[in-house]
């Protein structure tokens, strides 16, 4: 059996990739895609720990995270579409009206 540490290390690499994507991509949709990558990395770690402890609680948490992510995507993409209709862009640098 593959050790729990290997799964958590893979999860950490995927999470770091998602973080790099969030920091470097300039389109709101691409930032969202990277956030999904980070959520999946967290899910992978939770499932690995669930096997390690022999407790389905971790898998239940993953189920709830999946549902939250689906709701977040629905609302987030609706917001992106609404912003695009008004501003004709999804570039996060142009949408910094609330900063500071």
């Amino acid at each position, binding site marked *: *059996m*593959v*050790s729990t*540490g*290997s*799964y*958590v*290390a*893979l999860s*950490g*690499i*995927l*999470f*770091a*990739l998602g*973080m*790099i*994507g969030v*920091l*470097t991509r*300039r*389109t709101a*949709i*691409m930032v969202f*895609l*990277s956030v*999904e990558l980070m959520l999946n990395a967290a*899910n*992978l770690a939770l*499932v690995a720990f*669930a*096997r*390690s402890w*022999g*407790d*389905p*609680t971790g*898998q*239940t948490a*993953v189920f*709830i995270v*999946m*549902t*939250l*992510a*689906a*709701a*977040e*995507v*629905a*609302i987030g*993409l*609706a917001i*992106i*579409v609404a912003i*695009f*209709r*008004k501003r004709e862009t999804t*570039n996060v*640098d142009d949408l910094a009206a609330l900063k500071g």
Partner: protein
Amino acid sequence: MTLAFILLGALAIVGGIITIAAKNAVHAALGLVGTLLCVAGLFATLNASFLAATQVIVYAGAVMVLFLFVIMLLNANQPVTGRDPVPFVRELAGIGGTLLAGAFVVLAFTYKDPRPLAEGAAALKGGSALVMGETLLTRFLLPFEAVSILLLVAIVGAVALVQRPEAQPDGVPDELEEPIGAARPEREMAPRTGAQPALQAGRESEVGA
């Protein structure tokens, strides 16, 4: 088992790199689909068969279809050109990401399992829908119901957000919008005059008089 982990893990990392590096947003979304499918396979190797099925159906299926639909609807598959607002943001993100991944890898291999892995895997009974359902509807009943309400709110919110701007009385002034009543009558008039030549002739005679 080890071979499956190495293969799926490597493919997941490749998919993740495509996701964050692809210039075309459609390619990035398809890279993420690959990663999600590989993670579903990894769930299956971790005795979580129900979650593996849910991952394929909900994530790789429904969520990514929504993503691809919005990318194509907004025609956002072209990369945004322009300079970065923060200098060296790519280099800084690369260094930070490498450090974070290194820290995770080092921490992960210091983790000690509380019991033998085979014992824990047996206790999960394959992570079937029976095990998940028993846990969700007994110990986690309140979060389960809260999440169902959240999904309902999300559906209503998404529908309300993408309503037509005319039907949305937000009351927020928007300087980028055309003033109401400036260009709209002409836009409505154009097809009507084209479709009804008799009316158009009548109006032209009115204009001439």
